[in-house]
């Protein structure tokens, strides 16, 4: 079920919420967890009932393994073999469903194995629920986790606001909330905050992201089909996609945080104005925060992190980003995207090292502007590889961005014919300008609502935010308009981008 569908917004969500209210009113708070777990399974099974069995098996197996590991950890007998088995099992599952075709292709190419085209349908959300459970097993082994109730554990993995596309929640931050939040029952403040976040998230998706997609998609389709892309069209397509993926994914995440909040649960936030970052390091602290956190704690640091000198540190960074790229999709374009970010991060860390002690660089507006431009440029160009279906398609756009097809020849800087591009019109630039202003210059919803602690992990900011949300009539009116603007554009139901991953 999609968050931006009628069935979800007008049937499923009200039903789950009314069930929650009734159980609370009847003093049956202990039934809330089973209720939400059952509804989350319905939510998951709506599309692919077949994979419900897979999800359930994964949850039960991880629960049992986690319980054994945790018992061992408490008793002072670390169950390392069981942990290895558990992690390998999870990786094996995702490997089978997500990467079999990819690795069979590599094997065919390198060793002539002749597996041919292997295509296994990808179960929804497998990347997300696998990661959450791996983290859980590792923490059981560290003696930091060990949930005795399978229902509570099941809800931690499958809670529908976060199941399909994150945020990737950590057991320590949500499980302890369940009992307290559910026994307290519904609160109008939580509902007010939740609905506001849902309205904002839906608006970002259907009004902004979907309108940008109208311009971004044809450029990439054309490039993937072998077309030539001129300078203006390449930039319009790249910038439109850069903004589209932000509004799409952060809109989804805002909705997830808002949906959980209806039930009194605070989820970790996933985005914090990433396009305001003035370095790649900062970008990754603001973009898909829960994934960055997972990769840091369960990949980068176990690899050795920055503890073994700068060469190992940069290698670990690169490995982390390459695997992070591969996590997004089984394809070379995703590996290249991860690799580019790995290179950017290494350069960024190197620069920080070289300029340590150069106080004049900090807080200088010109330096900040240059740094911001470089950051956004790097991120945008990397998105081309993320978005294109083929490597050749991505290169076609990169050539376009560089002006090789029309701009440079027309200036006489390089030889060759000047390619006459079909052009892209003026409207796309209006959308890009509008979306950029919102993404870069406006405060984000977590800043605007900060006083009400909308989600977990909102960074402290000393700067004053001119807009501050409060449950007043004026804000209610604004939110109402935002909500209706999104609802009336729902007829063309499109998928959230992150469903693919």
């Amino acid at each position, binding site marked *: 079920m999609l968050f931006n569908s*009628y069935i979800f917004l007008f049937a499923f969500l009200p039903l789950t919420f009314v069930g929650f209210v009734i159980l609370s009113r009847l003093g049956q708070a202990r039934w809330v967890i089973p209720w939400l777990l059952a509804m989350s399974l319905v939510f998951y099974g709506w599309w692919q009932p077949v994979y419900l069995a897979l999800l359930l098996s994964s949850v039960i197996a991880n629960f049992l393994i986690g319980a054994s590991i945790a018992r061992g950890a408490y008793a002072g007998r670390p169950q390392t073999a069981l942990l290895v088995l558990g992690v390998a099992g999870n990786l094996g599952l995702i490997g089978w469903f997500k990467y079999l075709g990819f690795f069979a292709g590599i094997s065919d190419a390198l060793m002539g194995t002749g597996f041919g085209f292997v295509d296994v349908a990808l179960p929804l959300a497998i990347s997300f629920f696998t990661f959450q459970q791996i983290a859980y097993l590792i923490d059981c082994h560290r003696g930091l986790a060990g949930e005795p109730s399978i229902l509570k554990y099941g809800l931690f993995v499958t809670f529908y606001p976060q199941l399909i596309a994150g945020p990737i929640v950590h057991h320590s931050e949500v499980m302890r909330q369940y009992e307290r939040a559910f026994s307290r029952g519904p*609160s*109008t*403040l939580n*509902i*007010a905050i939740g*609905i506001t976040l849902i309205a904002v998230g839906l608006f970002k998706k259907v009004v902004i992201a979907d309108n940008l997609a109208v311009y971004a998609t044809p450029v990439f389709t054309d490039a993937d089909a072998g077309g030539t892309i001129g300078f203006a069209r390449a930039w319009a397509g790249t910038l439109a996609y850069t903004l589209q993926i932000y509004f799409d994914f952060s809109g989804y995440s805002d909705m997830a945080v808002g949906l959980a909040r209806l039930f009194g649960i605070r989820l970790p936030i996933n985005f914090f104005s990433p396009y305001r970052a003035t370095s790649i390091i900062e970008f990754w602290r603001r973009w898909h925060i829960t994934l960055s956190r997972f990769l840091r704690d369960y990949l980068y640091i176990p690899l050795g992190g920055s503890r073994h000198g700068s060469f190992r540190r940069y290698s670990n960074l690169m490995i982390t980003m390459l695997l992070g790229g591969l996590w997004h999709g089984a394809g070379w374009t995703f590996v290249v995207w991860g690799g580019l970010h790995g290179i950017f991060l290494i350069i960024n860390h190197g620069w920080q090292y070289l300029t340590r002690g150069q106080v004049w660089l900090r807080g200088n507006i010109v330096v900040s502007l240059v740094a911001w431009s470089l950051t956004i440029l790097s991120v945008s160009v990397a998105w081309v590889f993320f978005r294109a279906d083929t490597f050749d398609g991505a290169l076609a756009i990169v050539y376009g961005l560089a002006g090789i097809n029309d701009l440079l020849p027309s200036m006489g800087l390089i030889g060759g014919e000047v390619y006459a591009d079909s052009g892209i019109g003026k409207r796309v630039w209006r959308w890009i300008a509008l979306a950029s202003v919102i993404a870069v210059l406006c405060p984000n919803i977590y800043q605007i609502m900060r006083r009400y602690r909308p989600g977990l992990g909102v960074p402290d900011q000393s700067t004053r935010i001119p807009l501050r949300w*409060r*449950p*007043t*009539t004026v*804000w*209610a*009116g604004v*939110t*109402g*308009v935002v*909500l*209706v*603007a999104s*609802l*009336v*554009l*729902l*007829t063309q139901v499109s998928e959230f981008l992150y469903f693919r991953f």
Partner: protein
Amino acid sequence: MMRRAPNRYLVALFSVAGGLYLLLAGINLAVDPFGIYGMPRIDGFNAIKVDVDKHIRLAKAVQVRNAAPKTIIVGSSRAMLGIPATDPLWPEAQRPVYNLSLYGGYLYEAMRYFEHAAALGTVEHALIAVDMWMFDRDWATRPGFSEDRFLVDQNGDPQDPDDTEILKTLFAWDTLRSSLRTISRQSRDDILVQHPDGSADWKDEEAWIRVKEGHRPQFGYMEHMFATTAWWPDPGRWWTVTDPEDPQSPLQFFRHMIRTSYDKGISSRIIISPSHARIWEVIHAGGLWDTWENWKRALVTIVEQEADSAGKPAYEVWDFSGYNAITTEPVSGTTGPMRWYWDGSHFKQAAGRLILSKMFGASAPDVPDRFGAVLNSQNIDAHLSAVREAREMYLIAHPQDAKEAARWSELNK
């Protein structure tokens, strides 16, 4: 005080959102821009549905259910613009007539709309108006087509149409824009009037000429479109009319439609549109004349085969595509009106009425002799050869048209 603030917030939010949402739905319902909510048509307010073409596939699937017609017309935009569904020439016993033709209608779509209408139980007669480009295998259903709207599924089993779609359009921004356009354009003269009976017509020819800059440019535009997108084989494009047995050939959809018609006891007529002779020159220039003739042969063969299987007389297959005073009407320049055509492909309802006169044997002084012939396996070779001869005569008599048509041959090189 603070505790009550969230309550007030929620009340205000739901009032604003609910109010706006209902206001939008109320406007859409009252205007009914696609003619699918069954609201009254009020002159000067919403009588002319100027935007229905944006949702024509939805609108017609719904409208035909409400119309419960005795006769349906299926086809493409030629049949929609050219054949009036409400006309005294239709025999009393065959009315009401609903025109189920679609803009850009692919043959598969025509077949599905035919099945949908046949499942209503009211349809006794059908006019199946076909154009060769509808049989292109590489053509596809258009955006806006949905299998969920029909009374029968793809296997021919009954299904409940998904009417939530109608409800969704009521709450859509898209519909609101059409509603506002509908209200504001009622009195304009340069609009296409979509009639409740499914037929459509331009409101005013003078305004049409003003907007389209005359008939001659429209002839050129349409010929170019056909030459570049519809008729000339792209590399790798395969006209499956050359192989009527290919299960993926759209001819199979035609066969299925004829079979359904016999099964349901519907009395059908098949017509080949009377597009202008200049359009046939594009076919010729594209090297498709043989295909064109074979296609006509295939239609006749399929109808006769299905008639044999059903043990019933074969439906009449009318070829109006020949050369006569109608199809060779001189093309006017940029200002003057034309009697029978909008452009080379789309004939006017005046020509459509001649088709009705001819088929129903009404005495109409205007119908020229060589307008429309009933084809069967006995006469088709003679007929096709007569058409070929008539073409030679046409080229001699209309050297200007012949010269302009030669341009398409150049384009095909």
